């Protein structure tokens, strides 16, 4: 669905050339749900702009849906949906209903098809009551749901999302995520999700790409990232009584009343071993095991600590 080879983009600035994307390669198969992460200025949006035909690459090859984006911009636009979290693609002053009608005209969707598809989207995204409301009066969560509906109304093969959950409350985030997961499963839409919210990525993406300084520094599953970089886990122990506790093979990192936190390295000792040792020596009220936080791992990768 997407092929990127040796892709580069150099911006000429007053302070000399800046290499925003410094030669990246990847392929995305049809139906994949890919998270694209990286610190600000890493080259994320430049890559997405080259894939969507907004920017011309300085070098390398990019193909989306078998089309060269900048050369066949309009043809690609018919097969592609785009949602920018911080900007609207809807008609601000008009009732939401009219935005959907205009999208129908723009993408030449026959009216009957549009209505059928819209009825389904209205159900899933709970848009019904919003249709007569001017877009400017929608809440951010309502607007985001409407943006998604407008973007997928033409049934795109590939969907580029830029921070679709930014600023949303927990419930609205969940609605957006549920919808995207469902869309990917039932319609096989290929999704590229650019985000800072790693929760979005762990919940939705089968694959994660991390870019930094214009280069891909990670491309694989979220699980593989955890095992590769998340070498330490934390055992949280609630003791039956407040007493000193030492555990061979684990480092105490925190204590609060009868609760203790022990950090241990995955490849030095197993959780089972540690728990066996603990239960042999102390009376324990409760136990939990904390997996490495993906956000922590990614932050460490950005800082170059791994």
């Amino acid at each position, binding site marked *: 669905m997407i092929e990127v080879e040796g892709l580069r983009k150099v*911006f000429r600035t007053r302070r000399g050339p800046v290499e925003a994307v410094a030669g990246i390669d990847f392929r995305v198969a049809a139906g994949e749900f890919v998270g694209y992460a990286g610190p600000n200025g890493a080259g994320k949006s430049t890559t997405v702009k080259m894939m969507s035909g907004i920017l011309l690459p300085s070098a390398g090859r990019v193909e989306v849906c078998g089309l060269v984006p900048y050369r066949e911009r*309009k043809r690609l*636009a018919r097969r592609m949906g785009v949602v920018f979290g911080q*900007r609207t693609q809807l008609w601000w002053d008009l009732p939401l209903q*009219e935005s959907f009608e205009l999208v129908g005209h723009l993408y030449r969707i026959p009216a009957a098809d549009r209505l059928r598809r819209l009825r389904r989207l209205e159900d899933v995204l709970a848009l019904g009551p919003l249709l007569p409301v001017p877009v400017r009066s929608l809440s951010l969560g309502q607007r985001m749901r409407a943006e998604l509906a407008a973007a997928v109304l033409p049934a795109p093969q590939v969907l580029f999302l830029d921070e679709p959950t930014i600023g949303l409350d927990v419930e609205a985030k969940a609605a957006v995520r549920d919808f995207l997961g469902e869309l990917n499963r039932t319609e096989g839409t290929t999704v590229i999700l650019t985000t800072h919210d790693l929760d979005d990525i762990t919940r939705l993406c089968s694959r994660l790409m991390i870019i930094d300084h214009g280069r891909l520094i990670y491309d694989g599953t979220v699980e593989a990232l955890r095992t590769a970089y998340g070498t330490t886990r934390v055992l949280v122990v609630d003791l039956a009584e407040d007493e000193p506790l030492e555990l061979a093979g684990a480092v105490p990192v925190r204590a609060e009343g009868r609760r203790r936190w022990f950090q241990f390295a995955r490849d030095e000792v197993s959780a089972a071993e540690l728990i066996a040792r603990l239960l042999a020596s102390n009376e324990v009220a409760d136990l939990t095991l904390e997996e490495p936080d993906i956000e922590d791992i990614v932050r460490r990768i950005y800082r170059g600590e791994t």
Partner: protein
Amino acid sequence: MAEPARVYLHLAAAAVRATARRPAYLAMRTLAAALIVVFEVAGVVLLVDRFGTIGGWRPAEVVLLFGLAFAGQGLALLFGDTLEADKVSQLVRRGTFDQVLTRPVSPLGWVLASYVDTRFLGRLLAGAGTVVWAANRAGVAWTPGRAGLAALAVVCAATIVFAVLLAAAGFTFVTVQGSEAVNVLVYGGQYLASYPMQIYGPPLRFLFVWVVPFGLAIYVPALGVLGRQGPPGLPAWLAWLAAPAAGAFLAAGGLAWRAGIRHYVGTGS
């Protein structure tokens, strides 16, 4: 532009519906656009009246030229108002233009249709009204030919204003910063070119007729409307050149716009 024009009609209709949702505001803006014409024309009348005539033209005849120019401006701005440098600059800086490029339409068609501003009908109609009023005062006996010449002048003047805006917009894609300089050129230039051409010396006259052909678009057809003879070198029959000249100017503006888009897609911002 392979896609049917219908898409752009839908976009323009949406823009009109959006402004029509606040009718009082729209009416006020339309009235303001018309009043500008009235005040400017009053200024010209007061000025010319002091001298009696300008280059042998009576006030009503000079006002006719201004009426044609304003009507042309109104027609051009009806579609081209967003092409003004600071507005294009905003489209670029807010990322709106990136979004336009992800739509299956021509970016120029999108921008023109989506930002149709009906308040400039006020300027167009006030300009046309000025022409009718001035022609009446100047004792013009309307014939189909004379009405056709007046319409030609309006359309050609509009085309030239639009072409200058288009070129300026293309330029703004490169600089990103909106520049007042362009507005000075567009409106100041047109203002100067709205006076009878014989008051200018050969260099300026050459500029207004053959380089930025406002004079060819407005003054020369007006000679025919008023039944006057032009100064040496500017006979009334040159009016038939107004349309091709405006067309050529538009083509040049179109090239500048395209160059601007190419630059934008090449470098982003």
